[in-house]
């Protein structure tokens, strides 16, 4: 039952990730990528015991980043079949390169099949907010603060880049 659910969720995520590549319209690509992120959040929540991360993944990735992508695509009016046709040769070579990359990763992972299992998968609340927050605000306090500075600089940079003309102020 558990394996079946895992298989179903994984196949949905991989097929929708493939459809991101194969759909011509950029808007459909974004929507399939949102579907992929939803299935990944399902993996986090159901199998990996990371419920908080699943929710954050949905909010930040599917809710914010992908909407930003969609917004830019709509703003630049790319939502028609305006994909410039890639030459067949580069398409084939990209697919071959991706397949070879997957092969290399598989070969590296075959030794990993007998990896030690999760230590205490019994504890049901490892990914909940309380535990995560305790670790985040004690041991990872400095990276947390630094990431706020990162966000501030990203915000300033985005506003500066987004202004129409810098000379006019």
């Amino acid at each position, binding site marked *: 039952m*558990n394996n079946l659910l*895992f298989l179903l969720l*994984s196949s949905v*995520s*991989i097929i929708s*990730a493939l459809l*991101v*590549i194969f759909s011509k319209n*950029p808007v459909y*690509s974004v929507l399939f990528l949102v579907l*992929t992120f939803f299935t*990944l959040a399902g*993996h986090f929540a159901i*199998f*990996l*015991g990371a419920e908080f*991360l699943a929710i*954050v*993944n949905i909010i*930040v*990735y599917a809710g914010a*980043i992908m909407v*930003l992508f969609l917004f*830019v695509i709509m703003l*630049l009016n*790319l939502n028609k079949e305006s*994909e*410039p046709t*890639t030459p067949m040769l*580069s398409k084939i070579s990209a*697919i071959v*390169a*991706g*397949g070879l*990359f*997957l092969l290399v*990763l598989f070969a590296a*992972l075959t030794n*990993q*099949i007998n*990896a*030690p*299992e*999760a*230590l*205490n*998968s019994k*504890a049901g609340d490892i*990914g909940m907010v309380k*535990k995560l927050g305790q*670790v*985040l605000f004690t*041991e990872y306090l400095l990276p947390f603060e630094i*990431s706020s500075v990162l*966000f501030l600089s*990203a*915000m300033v940079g*985005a506003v500066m*880049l*987004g202004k129409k003309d810098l000379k006019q102020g």
Partner: protein
Amino acid sequence: MDNIPTAHFLILAAALLAIGMALVLVKKNAIMVLMGIELMLNAANINLVAFSRQDAHQLQGQLMAMFVLVVAAAEASIALAMVIKVFYHFKTLDLDELSELKG
């Protein structure tokens, strides 16, 4: 509900990473390439969270995945602002034509 072996998640993440790399290589549109990068970041996140099950006290993997999320959000906003700027300047997003810096 979590007795799926770690190796299965590694294989899933490997497949998604390969798909993301193919997306970066195939598409000529700059926005599509950014989406491929987001997919690859998420594939790495699966690995981090899967390994985090081995470490239930510190949750280092999950914390690292959260910081990856933070960096991805900042990167996406900056990159999309740059994409808009590039589109208004060059009237195209075709990465093969944006070769101003090529010597």
